[in-house]
């Protein structure tokens, strides 16, 4: 694998006795668009806040754009572009004012590029932020995160609350402005169908742990569902990598994490009949990882 733009090792975080991150390990390859998935409350925002040095973990280490956020948060924030979940900016500032103001915090701020983005995003420079629509607000947040030309960009559920057209436009900007420039984009979302076309890597966070991290294509090719025509209970003990196994209407549906010729043969042997195989969309793959029973409950439901 190429160098990591973000690496997290064995990160633990708790609010009092409530564990949020329980040993997160993750490497985000340089230049990738990395989709960070998880249900609400899985710990996505907490992970991101630790990466930016906004909160200190109980244990574990991370490195973002070559800096340790716990030792030098300022260096990390200078190097990284960040858009928070539902970012609230100062309502009373005009767009031109917030550009100037934000620019004064970054040594690498590029005024010409900021002006270029302003036109591209169709933002009225003289308007107050209070008067902007949700879509304009998100575009402004992205502009402010990009105008210092970061090589690593962290977006925390940036499309939350946008309409479908604005969402697509936002993702298009991520592709053309960031991927085309070779930047690394780490972005969390709970809308899987919108992540799939843009992400080349996907990590699934569940209950404070990474349950899977893989290139998107690999994930889609590896995770397969098999339909077995069999009514009684089966022994799936010999089938490796079962994510989910349920029986419904006289059929077994078995989802495998990595389907190979061997596992196909093994399944056919267990089923004792014809096995139907299908690919899954990202929603279904996510579901299998997050709420799959891992083949433990083999009694019919």
């Amino acid at each position, binding site marked *: 694998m190429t160098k990591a733009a973000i690496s997290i090792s064995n990160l633990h975080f708790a609010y009092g006795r409530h564990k949020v991150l329980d040993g997160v390990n993750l490497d985000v390859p340089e230049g990738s668009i990395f989709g960070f998935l998880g249900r609400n409350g899985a710990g996505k925002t907490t992970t991101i806040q630790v990466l930016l040095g906004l909160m200190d973990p109980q244990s574990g280490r991370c490195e973002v754009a070559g800096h340790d956020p716990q030792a030098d948060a300022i260096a990390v924030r200078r190097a990284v572009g960040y858009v928070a979940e539902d970012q609230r900016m100062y309502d009373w500032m005009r767009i031109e004012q917030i550009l100037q103001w934000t620019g004064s915090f970054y040594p690498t701020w590029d005024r010409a590029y900021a002006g270029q983005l302003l036109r591209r995003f169709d933002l009225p420079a003289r308007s107050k932020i209070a008067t902007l629509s949700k879509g304009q607000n998100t575009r402004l947040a992205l502009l402010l995160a990009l105008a210092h030309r970061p090589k690593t960009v962290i977006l925390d559920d940036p499309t939350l609350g946008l309409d479908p057209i604005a969402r697509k436009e936002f993702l298009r900007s991520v592709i053309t402005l960031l991927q085309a420039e070779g930047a690394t984009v780490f972005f969390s979302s709970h809308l899987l169908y919108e992540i*799939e076309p843009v992400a080349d890597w996907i990590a699934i966070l569940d209950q404070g742990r990474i349950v899977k991290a893989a290139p998107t294509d690999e994930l889609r090719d590896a995770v397969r569902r098999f339909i077995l025509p069999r009514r009684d209970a089966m022994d799936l003990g010999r089938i490796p990598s079962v994510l989910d196994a349920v029986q419904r209407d006289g059929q077994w549906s078995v989802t495998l994490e990595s389907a190979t010729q061997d596992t196909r043969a093994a399944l056919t042997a267990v089923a004792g009949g014809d096995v139907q195989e299908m690919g899954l969309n990202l929603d279904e793959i996510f579901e299998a990882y997050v709420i799959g029973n891992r083949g433990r409950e083999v009694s019919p439901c």
Partner: protein
Amino acid sequence: MFIRIEPSSSSPIYRQIMDQIRYQIAAGVLKPGDKVPSIRQLAGQLAVNQNTVLKVYNELCRERVLEVDRGNGTVVMQGNLTIPIDERRKAVAALLREAVVQAIHLEVPPEQVHALLEKEYQTILAEKNRSSHHD
């Protein structure tokens, strides 16, 4: 070039793009020598990862559907297909298999399937002829 992506489909995005480019060539919308959009352009237009488009183009170049014309970008392959006929048959058979499974499942008899296949074939062929007639 118009391509539509269905995000909730269980078919991966790159397969969807590949199939639609193939279809447009088969239907004559894209003719030999026509330029296809650059990777950046198509990725931006579809809001799809550039590597996905790269993968599609590489795959289609490997299959000799597209070729890289130096100085002119990626174009639809000129001239005859160089894939052996066996390979081509195999590729079509794999797709027909899915259709047959569906036909058996929906209890459509073989002769009707034949008729449907014939009809589809003629429709696309006619479309192709019509669009080449327009030039």
